[in-house]
């Protein structure tokens, strides 16, 4: 034995995500269906989303860059939740009943999903660029106006549902380890319905953080709009925002894709 006081084997546990996840897996096995389990599932999902990844910066960039509304932030959050639940469900069922691990290691599968997610994001970023350029072309260089009133039709194209949903999907494509463990523990112990309900609530926890980040980004943009003293500054800001958003989304997507490819090459 190498050392007497063992170092904790789990990686740095930001915001207690792992501890909450462990507690959740315990609850799947303990008898009874407790309300507390759902509260913990929601918190575990939120804690997981606060960690790196899950497209928080993407959500912010997209909403700021495309004149998003509160409803768009909600769409984004919900598509992350839906995709995450579907992903955990499909992989969990395949792993338990169809010997998925004989075909592909879960690490490899995750990397492949990251690659798909990265490419999706690059696609959305490039499409945003194209849309912006087209829109400017069709607007004929028409000047921009302020954004004090409710309906913001005009200069910046409004966010499109497919774009939002695709970004959300890329954020929920890779399952979180604890949600996956919750589902397979449920499948192994005959409590799959309860486990699936917990995974759904976990996804809603994830969604709530993305929604909150989206709202923060939107209110931040409104502050900028109100604080802009001259029309020229505002015009410049509203002109640059979509380009910056499209650029950062493309760059983030490119980074995720590159990392996925690198770890694929490294593993091969």
């Amino acid at each position, binding site marked *: 034995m190498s050392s007497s006081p063992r170092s904790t*084997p*789990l*990686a740095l546990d930001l915001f207690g995500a792992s501890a909450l996840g462990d507690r959740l897996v*315990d609850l799947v096995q303990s008898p009874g269906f407790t309300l507390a389990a759902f509260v913990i599932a929601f918190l575990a999902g939120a804690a997981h989303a606060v960690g790196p990844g899950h497209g928080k910066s993407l959500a912010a960039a997209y909403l700021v860059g495309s004149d998003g509304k509160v409803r768009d932030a909600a769409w984004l959050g919900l598509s992350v939740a839906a995709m995450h639940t579907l992903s955990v469900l499909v992989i969990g069922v395949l792993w338990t009943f169809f010997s998925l691990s004989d075909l592909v290691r879960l690490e490899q599968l995750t990397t492949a999903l990251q690659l798909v997610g990265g490419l999706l994001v690059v696609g959305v970023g490039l499409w945003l660029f194209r849309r912006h350029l087209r829109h400017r072309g069709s607007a004929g260089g028409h000047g921009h106006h302020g954004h004090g009133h409710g309906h913001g039709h005009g200069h910046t194209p409004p966010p499109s549902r497919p774009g939002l949903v695709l970004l959300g999907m890329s954020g929920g494509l890779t399952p979180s380890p604890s949600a996956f463990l919750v589902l397979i523990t449920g*499948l192994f*112990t005959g409590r*799959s319905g309860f486990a*699936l309900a917990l995974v759904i609530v976990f996804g809603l926890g994830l969604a709530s953080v993305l929604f909150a980040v989206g709202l923060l980004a939107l209110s931040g943009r409104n502050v900028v709009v109100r604080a802009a003293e001259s029309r020229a500054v505002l015009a410049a800001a509203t002109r640059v925002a979509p380009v910056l958003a499209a650029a950062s989304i493309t760059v983030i997507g490119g980074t995720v894709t590159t990392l996925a490819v690198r770890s694929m090459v490294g593993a091969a």
Partner: protein
Amino acid sequence: MIALHPFGDPQTVVIGSASDVVTVVWRVGAADDLTLLGIDLGVLPEDRVMLDGAITYDAGDADLVADSPELAAYVLEHVAVRSAGEECTGEVTDVGDLVADGATLAFTCAGPVTQAEVEVTTLTDLHPAYRTLATGPDGQRAVYDQTGSTHAWSFDPAVVTAASTTASTASPTPAPSSAGSDLGASAALQMGGVGAVLVLLAAGALALRRRAHRTTTPTTPS
């Protein structure tokens, strides 16, 4: 960018039997779990774990751990089989790639085995949150964790169905939750139920929204 806790296969055991021998194939799960075990056994250096808890591994690490006598001793110490109240004698018969193929243990019991209690405590000594997902003959399944480290397994198909119906009765060693076909059917039923509730909720929300929209539209001021 380092993944906080990489997503990988969980630790598994596959339990089988032939006459008086119970076989247990143990797979470690993800590669980082193998590294942690290697460090704990003293086979790998401690600097594999970085300050932030992230784990690095070299290409040869898996072989180092798999080939070490410490590993064989470890699995024999953490897996035990009892049949008819008597301890069965274990030996490690094969050690392959611990992630893909696992280590195979054979436990020779006093007579032909129709039922056995199998105890698995691997990796829970490193961290209490580790669990082992176990599959047995005829689709029997169970989850081993720190509080439930022993399960009873049946190797007689007639008994498997009986055990699955009496699994809920309190016994000192819980039987696996259910036979495979039952488990699959029950999962389909339960998860289908959750899906149906979800569809109903979504339909209800949509209907409510439409109604609210219809009643507010004519009175909305310009």
